[in-house]
């Protein structure tokens, strides 16, 4: 399948009072046409920074995309584009949905106008055309009584409704790439499911590629085709959703999966990954995860692991995959999953 967006050797730093924080340290991934790529990881792992950098939305005053970073889209490196060129891409080719629908709409602008804005800007619609299209979009995202509500202000909508409006704004110009930054985290569980369903349906209708950021593995299983796991500013494992869920290789992914509640687990206690994320002001030598990793080896303290290939689509950055490394037993929860689907990792399930 054709890649629509390729990120190569992305390095991003933030300049703070305390010094340079290396938030993203050599991230590589690609997004294929029509797929949903989930990026998972704990807070501070760099998933939001990565996607904000694709949109070039990071504050210029204190952040820096390092030289040599490549964000290839449509034959161009977004990292090198001028602000003017970037404004033409934002909202038209790549658009974004944010985490908190309560704060992501302009409180003093009617929602119709907010949806119409990118249409007038990028598609050169007239005001009237734009409002008609806005109405269509509101119907598309399933907002009840769109004719009446198009003239209302954001505070007159519930959280779920607002997220539908934000989605309508993002989809206004039929973007090729949609970045969803934890779009359901701030919502109630029942509303979460509705929004996820909506996004899945819309993706089929308008054929857009989605980067879906989340820390919730349950959501990942529901929406993603492929998964990239981030830790400490790097991608530590990437593969299809089945490979990641049923045959994970990286100890951090093991930890994530073991800490997921599951119906058939009979453990009384939920697994937690000990410790806290690394300090990216002074990134540790070797593997950033080593100090929290019970499977750590001497080499983890010295050398950063490279990406080892597991299958055509599955890679993981852990020394455990080195031929010289001892065979270790993954945790019980992971083994249980591996037993359930022996061998078949690169085809999708019933989804």
């Amino acid at each position, binding site marked *: 399948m054709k890649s629509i967006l390729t990120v190569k050797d992305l390095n991003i730093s933030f300049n703070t009072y305390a010094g340079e924080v290396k938030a993203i340290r050599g991230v590589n991934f690609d997004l294929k046409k029509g797929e949903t790529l989930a990026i998972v990881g704990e807070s501070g792992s760099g998933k939001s920074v990565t996607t904000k950098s694709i949109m070039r939305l990071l504050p210029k005053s204190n952040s820096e995309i390092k030289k040599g970073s490549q964000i290839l889209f449509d034959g161009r490196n977004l990292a090198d584009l001028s602000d003017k060129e970037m404004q033409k891409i934002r909202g038209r080719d790549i658009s974004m949905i944010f985490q908190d629908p309560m704060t992501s709409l302009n409180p003093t602008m009617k929602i119709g106008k907010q949806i119409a*804005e990118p249409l007038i*800007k990028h598609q050169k619609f007239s005001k009237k055309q734009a409002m008609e299209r806005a109405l269509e979009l509101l119907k598309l995202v399933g907002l009840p009584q769109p004719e009446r509500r198009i003239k209302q*202000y954001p505070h007159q909508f519930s959280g779920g409704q607002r997220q539908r409006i934000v989605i309508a704004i993002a989809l206004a110009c039929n973007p090729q790439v949609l970045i969803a930054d934890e779009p359901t985290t701030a919502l109630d569980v029942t509303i979460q499911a509705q929004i996820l369903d909506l996004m899945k349906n819309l993706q089929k209708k308008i054929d857009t590629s989605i980067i879906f950021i989340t820390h919730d593995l349950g959501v990942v299983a529901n929406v993603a085709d492929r998964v990239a796991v981030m830790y400490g500013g790097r991608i530590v494992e990437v593969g299809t959703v089945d490979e990641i869920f049923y045959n994970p290789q990286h100890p951090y992914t093991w930890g994530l999966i073991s800490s997921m509640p599951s119906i058939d687990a009979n453990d009384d206690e939920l697994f937690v990954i000990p410790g806290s994320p690394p300090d990216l002001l002074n990134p540790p030598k070797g593997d950033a995860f080593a100090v929290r990793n019970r499977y750590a080896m001497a080499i983890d303290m010295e050398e950063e692991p490279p990406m080892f290939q597991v299958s055509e689509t599955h890679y993981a950055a852990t020394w455990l995959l080195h031929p010289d490394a001892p065979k270790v037993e993954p945790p019980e929860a992971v083994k249980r999953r591996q037993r359930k689907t022996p061998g078949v990792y690169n085809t999708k399930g019933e989804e």
Partner: protein
Amino acid sequence: MGKYVLQRIGYMLITLFIIVSLSYFLMKLIPGSPFSAAEKLTDSQLAIMNAKYGLDQPVPIQYLKYMGNVLQGDLGVSFQFSNTPVTELISQRVGPSVTLGLQAMIFGTIFGIVLGVIAALRQNTWMDYGSTFLAILGKSIPSFVFAALLQYFIAVKLGWLPVAFWRGFEYSILPSIALAIFPISIAARFMRTEMIDVLGSDYITLARAKGATPFEVAFKHALRNALIPVVTVLGPLTAALMTGSLVVEQVFAIPGIGEQFVTSIKVLDHPVIMGTTILYATLFIVIIFIVDILYSIIDPRIRLSGGNN
């Protein structure tokens, strides 16, 4: 909305009643008779004067009479300018004070807002530091000090503008500037904070994600949202302008209410002190009320309710 407005008006009247009563009794506590200050009067002359102005009656009776008159729009007659009604004295002097206050308020808030917006959009550049420094100066230098320095350097030394008095627009420029520095600094500081706050909000990121230019982001999305709360400083600014006008009118010898108030304090002209107090209190309360209503009109999020808020 209607219910809320009525409730507020009721509340305003109660506040006003308390202020007037409090001021009245406080004034009665001031030692010294207003008639002894100017000239030496014999006891019998004093008694005649007291009887003439009804000051020989018990204070509660005087109070009731006064309140009755106030309700009919009668603020009594001045002791100093014998037999001139206070309302007439005040209305003669309202013109210069209102002109000055409005000029200072309009110029001050607009200039302050512009400074604040520039500072926020060019955060941490020399423009930001410059405007912040101006704001600190404006907030720190007392208006009468600034007025006196302006008068000395601009009018006396350079001769660019008239030194004092009230004979036309050019006479109002220096006093207006002197009064305006406080509104400028308050509006600039407030605007900068609000604007930075708004510029950091999620909906601004979303606007940028839609492809809006920095200009559109700043003026279409951020400015309106940042401007709304600035309305709230108008109340305190009014109070500050009243205070400022007292001394600025003094410095520039402007025949306004402030100057008259200061004089009436010096000669203990009770009816004028009371009349001006009522005027200031009413003005202050009404402006705060207008600000609240205005706020609810320009901010779609606020819907006034009848309950306590």
